[in-house]
């Protein structure tokens, strides 16, 4: 059965016909061609598919596209204007917070929400905060440093 959904993604309104069983991550990647959102474990463990839905980080592999009707979504492509970096992206760049980069879009989205709730987290709070995002290049130390840098930068800005 098809459903018509309308949602805002990275500031743009999109209307589309989707099957009941279409997963949000497939809608984003295949229907909208926004391939920055990755599919890792496909079981809500790894966090590679993390996106922002109505201001909350969620795992889009475990969410039906049809349920996103009316939602406001931000993917990695929409965290900063074209050609610029969000302070979190810049921090991952500066601190070498990635190796292969597969987990990075999810890490960045999750870390942005983390700082929204807790602008100045301790190292332990950062580690708990990104506990649903796995990096298999074992790059957590630099990821933590990146989140710390972004926290400092973003506090200066505000």
């Amino acid at each position, binding site marked *: 059965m098809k459903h018509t959904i309308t949602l805002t993604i990275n500031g743009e309104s999109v209307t589309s016909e989707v099957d009941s069983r279409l997963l949000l991550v497939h809608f984003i990647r295949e229907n909208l061609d926004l391939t920055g959102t990755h599919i890792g474990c496909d079981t809500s463990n790894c*966090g590679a598919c993390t996106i922002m839905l109505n201001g909350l980080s969620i795992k889009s592999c475990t969410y039906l596209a049809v349920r996103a009707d009316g939602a406001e979504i931000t993917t990695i492509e929409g965290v900063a204007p074209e050609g610029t970096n969000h302070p979190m992206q810049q921090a991952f760049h500066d601190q070498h917070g990635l190796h292969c980069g597969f987990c990075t879009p999810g890490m960045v989205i*999750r870390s942005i929400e983390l700082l929204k709730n807790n602008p100045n987290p301790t190292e332990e709070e950062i580690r708990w905060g990104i506990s649903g995002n796995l990096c298999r290049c074992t790059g957590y130390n630099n990821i933590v440093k990146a989140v710390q840098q972004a926290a400092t930068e973003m506090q200066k800005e505000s």
Partner: protein
Amino acid sequence: MIPSNFTYHKATSIQDAIALSKTHGEEAKYMSGGHSLLPMMKLRFASPEHIIDISKIDGLSYIKEDGDFLKLGALTTQTEIEYSKLIKEKYLIFSDAVKLTADPSVRNVGTIGGNIAHGDAANDQPALMLAMRATIIAQGIDGKKSIPIDEFFHGFYMTALDASDVLVEIQIPKAKKGSGGAYHKVERKVGDYATAGVAVHVELDDNGICQEIGIGLTNVSAVPMRLERGEVILRGQKITEDLIKQVGKIASEDAEPTSDLRGSEAYKRSIVNTITQRMIRLALERAQK
């Protein structure tokens, strides 16, 4: 992984949800956060023909004290519980449990009602509900009903809820002076289901005598388990270190764990013993504050 075909229905009210369920019968399943059900559907362990989405129903997300009860709306997310001021001040057992449940992005979607209604002894909230002697409020074809938690869990993924019943509210006796609770589970890695978990809620009188105690165990039996024999030993007593050790031993004897990837049966019995003791001590310490 993609779920098998089904038809999605969005319920706009509890009545609407019940009517949809009545129409589609046993082939329909309610979905709230979907973080237990959808993974099962993707693995094809479940293939309901109809999904009735109850997550958009207004007015089922709240945490409040009302009369003698703490009332939690069924659609309250784990994150909302995590950040609730009331919970952080008076119901630390929830803070213990939520932090150990899945991870922040999953908690943004997963609901307390879903966690309980799923009827999985591996979920964390059922043990808390047993310890605190919750009452489950459900609404179905014949109206509202109250189900004491001891009558709620029937078997593996089976509960007292009829197919059309929507779990709408959880009621827990309000925290009072001299009461305290604690929860801990051992997990292989952050976000995993419990290898074993223990929830304890204790109520002391002015003389430090245990008036009421609840002990719930996670993932060491097919059905969320109350440690009845342990409760009987502590109720009406001044809880001493000797009694705590005795109850820990009882927990290891009465639990019914099976060996699996998370550990052998013997290992699980051993950690149930240890966590039971630690949680009784922590609940006591919090009750004495």
